[in-house]
């Protein structure tokens, strides 16, 4: 955040966001301007002009009728103005803000959906960009607030400023001196405050962690089983809190003095006390002002002073929003490196897949995760990837899906580099169940088709078939709202929560539904009990009759029926062949198999 921004940059960023605001809801933005003006003009008229006129009328004995008309006119203006204000706050702004937000957020989501997955791995990028995305709402209100500040300043300086200019130019000097000195004091105060916050932030983050430990369900069991951890965490919390206490103490005195300086010495002293002395001097010694003028000038000075203060805050405030807007803009400008060279569509049929000399390492990692892999998969073949934790199996899947591009080497589908196809078009022919699949807070139907349900297409039969195959039929057939039952109770009370096993089956149903030429299953049965696993295996085999299937599983019983098994270690293929071939090889696969199957064999003779 240290990077200094040029003024041009700040202005351009703020204008960028304002432009979007105007485009997405012009009537809201125009209403914002009208609302600001009517308010500021009203205050100027009511607090300065009308009072000055009435006092003048009393002093110089104008007819009462004139005063009556002026005041009634003012009342009328105020009433109309307040009705508009209410209309603005409860209708225009409440409707406009979500619309503006929708516009910007959808722009961001649209970008996010095509962004390289690698951005999510890199914490720095993640914090810089992705979290900036989560702040859109705040930035919009900041930018609109900025617009209001500018309007207020212009308005007050033009009205009150002009008034002072006409009535007494010297007064402006007082306001101006107060403005300059207090700006200087403010700067010093903010500098200390920034340092103070910086010191505190780290500690506060640590304190938040402990907060999470105590309030998240995740830790609840451990806290109850290990009383000493509770004590330890509580001690840690109190220590951190005491450290924050010391930081507060350290900065307190400095902030106290500077605070006094900015609020009183540089501000009220000049604009209130000294200014009043000046007014009295003019009234008593020079006899230039009447009593009423002293009061009106004195009271109006406050508004001008405040407007000047607001003025001085515009640039820093704009700078702050600019930093965030910059992140939003940068984000929108990222071009995903994983792009298709064309929009060639991959047909929905099993195809030949060739991996040639593939190596890959995650950004910033020292070692390759994939280290020279060659593999040819024939259309309709059933392939299993097995190996130890961290051997690179899941990474290989991600490369195949083009979630990442291989560092070196090529992947060919039907003899054509996968980078030649359109990315989305390419992925359409692959159905995948990830190890860490995610369900959405949406209906069963939507969770399976993972797309908007078009009303003229009846998807029910295909979905029922898919859940039948994944073994969820019994569960879902009983539901009152059928396929339109919401998953999770997050938004709807009549939603259902699924157990780990059921969730996994639902994720698998997606793959059955998708009817793609290639099915990839990464640990599809880890949360299932043996019977469910057994049935699932059968279902997968029968459903994928004509399809290419790639399995990853730690349970070798699941993978033994594969046409070909690849055993991976440290990112390379160390053994491959059918189950029988690999057993005869008596290598690492055979060892792994004997560890797992051995006990079953022994027990059953």
């Amino acid at each position: 955040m240290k990077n200094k921004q040029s003024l041009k940059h700040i202005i351009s960023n703020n204008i960028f966001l304002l432009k979007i605001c105007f485009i997405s809801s012009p009537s809201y933005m125009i209403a914002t301007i009208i609302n600001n003006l009517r308010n500021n003009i009203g205050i100027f008229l009511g607090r300065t002009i009308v009072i000055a006129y009435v006092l003048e009328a009393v002093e110089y004995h104008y007819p009462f009728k004139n005063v009556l008309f002026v005041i009634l006119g003012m009342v009328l203006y105020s009433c109309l103005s307040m009705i508009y204000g209410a209309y603005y706050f409860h209708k225009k702004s409440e409707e406009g803000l979500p619309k503006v937000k929708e516009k910007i957020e959808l722009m961001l989501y649209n970008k996010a959906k095509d962004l390289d997955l690698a951005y999510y791995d890199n914490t720095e990028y993640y914090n810089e960009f992705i979290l900036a995305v989560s702040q859109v709402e705040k930035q919009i209100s900041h930018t609109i607030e900025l617009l209001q500040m500018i309007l207020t300043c212009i308005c007050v300086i033009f009205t009150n400023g002009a008034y002072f200019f006409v009535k007494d130019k010297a007064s402006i000097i007082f306001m101006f001196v107060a403005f300059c000195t207090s700006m200087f004091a403010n700067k010093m105060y903010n500098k200390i405050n920034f340092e103070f916050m910086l010191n505190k932030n780290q500690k506060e983050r640590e304190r938040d962690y402990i907060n999470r430990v105590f309030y998240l369900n995740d830790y609840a069991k451990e806290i109850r089983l290990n009383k000493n951890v509770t004590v330890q965490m509580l001690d840690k919390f109190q220590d951190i809190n005491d450290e924050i206490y010391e930081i507060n103490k350290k900065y307190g005195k400095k902030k106290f003095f500077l605070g006094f300086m900015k609020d009183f010495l540089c501000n009220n002293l000049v604009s209130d006390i000294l200014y009043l002395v000046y007014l009295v001097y003019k009234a008593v010694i020079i006899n230039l002002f009447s009593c009423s003028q002293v009061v009106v000038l004195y009271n109006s000075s406050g508004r001008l002073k405040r407007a000047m203060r607001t003025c001085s805050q515009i640039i820093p405030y704009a700078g702050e929003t600019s930093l965030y807007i910059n992140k939003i803009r940068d984000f929108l400008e990222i071009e995903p490196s994983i792009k298709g060279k064309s929009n060639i569509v991959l047909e929905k049929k099993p195809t030949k897949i060739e991996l040639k000399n593939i190596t890959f390492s995650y950004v910033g990692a020292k070692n390759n995760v994939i280290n020279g892999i060659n593999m040819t998969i024939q259309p309709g073949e059933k392939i299993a990837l097995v190996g130890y934790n961290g051997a690179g199996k899941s990474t290989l899947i991600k490369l195949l899906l083009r979630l990442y591009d291989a560092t070196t080497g090529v992947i060919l589908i039907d003899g054509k580099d996968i980078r030649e196809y359109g990315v989305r078009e390419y992925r359409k022919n692959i159905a995948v169940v990830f190890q860490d699949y995610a369900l959405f807070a949406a209906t069963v139907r939507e969770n399976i088709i993972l797309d908007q349900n078009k009303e003229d297409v009846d998807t029910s039969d295909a979905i029922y078939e898919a859940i039948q195959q994944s073994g969820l039929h019994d569960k879902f057939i009983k539901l009152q709202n059928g396929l339109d039952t919401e998953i999770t109770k997050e938004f709807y009370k009549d939603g259902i929560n699924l157990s780990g096993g059921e969730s996994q089956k639902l994720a698998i149903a997606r793959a059955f539904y998708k009817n793609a030429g290639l099915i990839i299953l990464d640990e599809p049965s880890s949360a299932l009990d043996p019977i469910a696993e057994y049935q699932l295996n059968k279902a997968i085999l029968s459903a994928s009759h004509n399809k290419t299937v790639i399995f990853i599983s730690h349970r070798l019983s699941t993978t033994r029926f594969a046409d070909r098994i690849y055993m991976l270690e440290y990112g390379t293929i160390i053994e491959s062949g059918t189950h029988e071939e690999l057993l005869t090889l008596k290598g690492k696969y055979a060892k792994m198999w004997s560890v797992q199957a051995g006990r079953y064999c022994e027990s059953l003779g």
Partner: protein
Amino acid sequence: MHKENDFSTIKDNLYAIKLVWKFSKKKMFCTFVYEIITYLEEVFVSAYFLKYVIELIDKHTDFFIIFRYILISGMALMFISLSRSYIQNVVYPLSENKIYRGIYSTLYKKASNVELECYENADFYNKYTMAIENTADKVVAVINNTAGLVSGIIASIAIFYSIYQIDSIAILFIAFPMIGNFVFGIMLSRNIMKRYEDSIVHQRIIKYINRVFYLSDFAKEIRTSNVYQLLKGKYMNAVGNLIKVVDAYSKKLILFDALKNIFSFPLMFDGVLLYGAYKAMIFHNISLAEMAVFTSVVVAATSIIMNLSNKWLELIKNGMYIKNLKYFFDYTEKIPEDYDGIVPDSKIETIEFRNVSFSYGQGDPTIINLSFIINGKSKVALVGHNGAGKSTIIKLLFRFYDPDQGEILVNEKNIKEYNLKEYRKLFASAFQDYQIFASTIKENILMGEKYENENKRVEEALKLVNAWKDVVALEHGTDTMMTKEFAKDGVVLSGGQCQKIIVARALAKDAAISVFDEPSSALDPIAEYNLFRSIMQKTMNKTVIFISHRLSSVLDADCIIMLENGRIIEQGTHGDLMKKKGVYADMYLKQASNYLAINDLRWQFEK
């Protein structure tokens, strides 16, 4: 009804005040001082100070006398400003820190003392989350608001008095609009509340979709499917619904808000002005100086009164937050974690479930009339389908929940008779959803327990789970910080490695009973095999209960308990159950058949 609400709101506010009083009397005292001097300044400057100066000018007093007066007043204002800055920059941060410490320590203690069920009860958990979120800030807000309210009332009286001194009838011009302001203000805020309640679900959907796009959890699905369209549709739909809600309330809100403001400003302000002008111009019984001051006092009076009505609304809002906090603090635990009782004998003779039934909340029973006995030092496996009730049995045994019916006995005593803290010490456990804490590897294994020869113990446990080599390779060895919460160079371990640490945690603990619930789900076959061997070796002389889907790992159990829909359907050793040819045998064969030639086996078995 409405009266009662307001009354309870005030009570809730008082509750927060009591809390602050307990943790920092200084904060309480200083807030009142702060608010009072702030109002004092405002009333003094707008009413008395200016009025006096104008009077002096009007009487053609000597400039230096006025100058001296302004200077003395200036000194007084300086003193006020000085104290304000001191309170704000020195007293507040320190005293609020103490309040934070006090309130959160109490909250955490309470949170770790309520029974686990509270976390699973959505209604309770919601209240709890709301209570714990920014609680200290909210409590402090109550104090600030109350002090502001009280001082505001005093200030209004003072300013009313000064208006009264100038003209007694003018008071009516302020009092009457005040009633209007207040009445419409309440109607307004009620409707805003209602609108908020109606829109909350749509707001949450929008937030949820936002989360989906920025969390990495969903990133892969978004890329490999067309779910973007679905989410976009949902988002736009939610915005549409939100606008519908706004629309439904807009007429009412505009009306109430406009009336509230019209009552406050034009009537109060211009009314008084007109009245003053009328008196000055027609009756001539108010001097110009008085008239001038009058206007400035009225400006101050309007702002003080507006403030007052805002503070009142704030009070109602704060009351709602505090209600949750109060609910949580006042909640009586069903199974308090500091439950006292007999200290259990660490030598386990028997563990018995006697006719135990249990259901979560209002749901269908998870455990139905369950009875079994586990002998000390035996190895017991719980097997069955997903959702058969295996994990629930463990939770009941740990006394996270109490059974609805029946009793659980350890050494022939109902576990309810034991001191809960001591009772829990009997167990060492590893579950698949256990968590790593942000502290060193060593601390994550010892979990705050004190032992002699701690390093040796940690080393032994890590060796048993086959993680010692990896840990020693780290720069700080067992003192390496886990996660990056507290240390930038902390390590983030993979799922499999975390599981090993969690099992090591259970193995390092001196406990009579060890419980393992799918401790190896993220491990590869070899690692899993080794892990099970280590567990068995280490727990030779202990009672062990374990849950595993991999039936080959339950072969050696002294007793296998097969569960289905919360009931025991079969029980015995592997051999017994195979002979019985029941559900277990079927399940075992199905699993084994994947490893062996299926048909031969079944044939052999049925023969």
